[in-house]
């Protein structure tokens, strides 16, 4: 059933990472993603792995959830590994047959890239595991608010994003309802050629559009009735506040980045 698709992947919890200010989490996640890319040798990468593993442990998100986020990229991982093994040349040759050869550099690059991608995915999915979509859009709104001087309506954009996220499950339910109603009137959605199928979608698409517009109007009225006038002068129920934990996290991340730079300088570059 369509309803089984979960949107967002927030994993409820009360860990330090869950309680951190979403703005700090967002900024640090970006910083650490950059950090993964500046690693140039295994020592620096190892530091990143240690960082990622400790972050996972701190978040108390179960390991199987983390593995679930890696699962969809397994093919990409395999592809990258194969490409790197066969196309990067240099160093000692381990294996050679016809035009294909496997060299030391190839193997190293392959391992390095795979670990790098895994770390990337783990770090970014930790952000979504520990932060609800609403908190994330809130954080984006706050972080982008300096753009107001260019007359960009940051609040409006964030509100649109929040509403869009909020209505995805509602729309999925609605589609299911309409599909059932039309199927009950004998609509055939499964058979026929491409054109026939596209035509068969009309009885589902039109009611969906109509009800979406109706919903949008109703929502707009409801918001107006509650005196919504946009972002100006609007206060928040959940104040975002940087706490000690956020600054400690900041310092830790800075330390890791510094460590990576130092390790990059002291050991030979392999990628």
């Amino acid at each position, binding site marked *: *059933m369509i309803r*089984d698709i979960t949107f967002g992947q927030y994993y409820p919890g009360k860990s330090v990472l869950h309680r951190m200010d979403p703005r700090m989490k967002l900024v640090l996640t970006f910083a650490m993603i950059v950090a993964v890319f500046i690693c140039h040798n295994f020592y620096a990468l190892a530091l990143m792995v240690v960082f990622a593993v400790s972050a996972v442990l701190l978040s108390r998100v179960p390991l199987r959830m983390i593995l679930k986020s890696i699962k969809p990229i397994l093919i990409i991982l395999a592809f990258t590994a194969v490409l790197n093994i066969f196309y990067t040349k240099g160093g000692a040759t381990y294996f050679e047959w016809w035009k294909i050869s496997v060299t030391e550099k190839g193997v190293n690059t392959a391992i390095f890239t795979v670990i790098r991608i895994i770390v990337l995915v783990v770090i970014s999915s930790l952000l979504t595991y520990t932060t609800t979509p609403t908190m994330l859009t809130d954080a984006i709104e706050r972080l982008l608010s300096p753009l107001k001087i260019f007359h960009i309506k940051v609040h409006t954009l964030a509100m649109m994003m929040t509403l869009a996220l909020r209505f995805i499950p509602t729309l999925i339910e*609605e589609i299911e*309802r*309409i599909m*059932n*109603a*039309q*199927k*009950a*009137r*004998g*609509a*055939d959605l499964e*058979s026929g050629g491409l054109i026939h199928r596209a035509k068969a979608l*009309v*009885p*589902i698409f*039109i*009611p969906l559009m*109509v*009800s979406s517009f109706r919903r949008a109007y109703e929502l707009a009225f409801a918001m107006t009735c509650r005196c919504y006038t946009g972002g100006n002068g609007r206060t928040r129920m959940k104040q975002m506040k940087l706490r000690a934990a956020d600054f400690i996290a900041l310092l830790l991340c800075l330390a890791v980045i510094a460590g990576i730079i130092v390790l990059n300088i002291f050991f030979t570059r392999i990628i």
Partner: protein
Amino acid sequence: MTYPVELRNVSFYYSAGTPIQVAALKNINLKIGRGELVGIIGHTGSGKSTLISHFNGLLRPSEGSVIIDGEDLGNDKETLRAARFKVGLCFQYPEAQLFEETVAGDIAFGPKNMKLPNDEIQSRVLKAAEFVGLRPELLDKSPFDLSGGEKRRAAIAGVMAMEPEVLVLDEPAAGLDPGGKNEILAMITEYRKRTGCTAVLVSHSMEDIANIADRVIVMNGGTIAMDGTVNEIFSRSAELKNMGLNVPEITRIFIRLRELGYDVPTDVYSVEKGAEILREIIGRRSPL
């Protein structure tokens, strides 16, 4: 003897095979006789809508079998499609299914899917529209220009135009004012009288069902908790209360009067009948 709708040991699970599997129906056995008007009542989440979605094969049972008109709905596509036309299902808030440019076009959607000849479709559209009380001049309008009550009628006409042997209506009067509600219910009684079809009416309102149903099925927690005539069901008001259901207000008044020692019947489902009986009792007493 075959039944228009028969369910044998039907169970249905949502998200079957996953840790969040939920049993929506548990071992349901049900026979609906030809020409019956069956009311299905139950609390929200008792499995009413899941149950009726089995009648036309929209949902396939996880266990057990559904037999429509003597034919087991297996997994054969053709049998399933045929069942859609034999059992006309009209969901809650059916106005959400309107989509055509004209009301007539929308009512014709079902019959068109049945691949009927054009003149037959035309006559069925007119017949169904007349039945639900849609004025002919409305037929060429866009369904989105109709009022709420008219949209509901148009949508119900869309199902009636398929002339199903079994007409299943899920909360046909939901969200309508009392006048509109009574009109819809009267329309269903009239339709059945004229066509003699079998009808199933789902509702959580006892009042709606009490006055028109021959037989009432009470759903609770995915099982059939009670099955009997209106009188039989309402005589078990204490049990109904435990299931979060209530007998009609007027019936409650008469049950209470009886408890207080008055000699009154308890099978009173409409205010009119109640008033009549009360008037009679008061009239019998000589004024002081």
